[in-house]
């Protein structure tokens, strides 16, 4: 088993990395989750890159506002020679959009009609080819906590996820989403609605093959 470091900004992104690793990269094992305190990952890119010289580092972060994924990625590693095993993944536009990309299971999880789920469509990302991503009017987590969850027929779940303030998430947001990610979310369904997820899966499959 190859030991790897995983890097996520919050519990949801780390749970997504764990899930994708478990499903597509069985030869990899988590050495540690970094950083010790979240939301500091964009300031520590040179350190993650240096660490990747000793063991693979799998990073998952959200898309910066107004940027496309390649621009966000190139900004992150600006001025650095990226180590081969520093695997940078950008969720478009947020990790929560990847969860919604498994429309069938997410609708079932929320207890809503699938017709109410957002859909994916090809989007311009600055390159030659249009990329398929979920089309959500606001940031995915904001849409989930302020709009989509209100449609839910599950009272408990609604109470856990819906925002109780202007900007915050639900009081038991992670408690609700983490079991979904571990048990119900199917990245195989989701990747057809999100090229950014598809690419992360391909990168981890390649890393897995390298160390198998």
């Amino acid at each position, binding site marked *: 088993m190859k030991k790897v470091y995983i890097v996520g900004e919050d519990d949801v992104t780390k749970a997504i990395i764990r899930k994708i690793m478990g499903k597509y990269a069985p030869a990899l094992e988590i050495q540690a989750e*970094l950083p*010790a305190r979240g939301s500091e990952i964009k300031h520590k890119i040179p*350190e993650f*890159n240096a*660490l990747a010289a*000793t063991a693979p580092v799998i990073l998952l972060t959200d898309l910066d506002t107004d940027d496309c994924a390649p621009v966000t990625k190139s900004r992150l590693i600006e001025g650095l020679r990226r180590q081969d095993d520093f695997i940078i993944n950008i969720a478009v536009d947020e990790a929560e959009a990847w969860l919604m990309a498994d429309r069938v299971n997410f609708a079932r999880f929320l207890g809503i009609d699938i017709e109410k789920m957002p859909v994916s469509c090809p989007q311009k990302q600055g390159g030659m080819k249009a990329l398929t991503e979920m089309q959500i009017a606001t940031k995915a987590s904001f849409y989930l906590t302020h709009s989509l969850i209100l449609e839910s027929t599950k009272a408990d779940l609604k109470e856990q996820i819906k925002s109780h303030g202007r900007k915050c998430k639900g009081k038991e947001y992670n408690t*609700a989403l*983490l079991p979904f990610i571990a048990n119900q979310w199917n990245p195989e369904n989701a990747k057809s609605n999100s090229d950014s997820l598809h690419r992360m899966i391909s990168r981890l499959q390649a890393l897995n093959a390298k160390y198998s």
Partner: protein
Amino acid sequence: MIISKIELHNWKNFQECSVDIAERCFIVGANATGKSNFLDALRFLKDKAKKGGGLQTAVDARGGIKKIRCLSARKRTDIEIKVTLKESPDGQDKWIYSLSFKHIGGGIRPNEVIVNNESVFLIPQNEYLVNRTERSENETEDTLKYTHLEQAVTSQKFLEVRSTFAEIEYLNIIPQLVRESNSNPIVKEDYFGRNFLADMAKLNENTRNKYLQSINDVLRCAVPQLDNLSFTKDGNGLYHLEAKYIHWRAQGSKQTEAQFSDGTLRLIGILFAILAGKGITLLEEPEINLHQGVVAQLPEFIARMQRYKKRQVFITTHSYDILANEGIDEKEVILLQNNAEGTIAQVIADVKNAKDVLDAGFTMADAVLPLTKPGNVHNMANITIN
């Protein structure tokens, strides 16, 4: 004197443990890996060496040998503590004190312990000043109930070892106990604050005022609404800490320890232990009750104190803010991790994956805290609450 190495065998969580110790030593690990039990090995030596102490007293205070022996103990059933000492951080090792003890009694005989082996080795002279076992001449079951370390006559030649252990300072203030201290009878020895005010009263007034001045200087920074910390005696002869609480009235109001916040009392207790202790100081999770901004100052404050007082400090901690201090060296941190054979203790300088993270430019917090986080802690989200 400072401790340069600790070796434990069958001591509580530690079936086998051997670690080099720095002048400032941070002990990190998940809950229940044995951080406090590691410190307790040193407190045990204190309990043995202090006035009125001794081997039987130290074992009884811990509930008997069954409560001390490692649950992972295998064929070898004795308990051993071995400590190497040196004069200064840069000096050469001077003494090795080793004690192994085991159970006797049971049934109609009282449960006691006897020395299995006690030795005191003077390294520069390459000489054992003490080396006793059951088979040694003139030793009987009765003589072996006492260590040479705890007896004034038999420890004459290695008095500095005895003093080093006896002067180990451990103060883990529980604020509620300080507030209630005047309603509790004085207990013989207390590490949790019940005797805190009485101990302060025993100090020479000038010395006490000097310490209070230093504590007050820190409080002015950490708790700016408090000033003029002083030690007073009320009409009933009871001692109090008193400070001025600054508010909109020009003179402010006086408050005593009964009104101080938990954090204020904890901070006063930590500072008092650091300032007033004579020897090796053990600090148990100093971050408790304190704001992270204050906690972040502690590593450098302790280092500054050490520069003046030349005193070794052990600190158990879970704190990101303490460990994020960039002055913490890989030789200063001991990582405790559980496995099937008990707890493994390693200096971070010997932990490859933590060193890789440090070498990549991360702080000690990023290098060690992910290793102390329980692997399945995220599964708390799956727990059903009925």
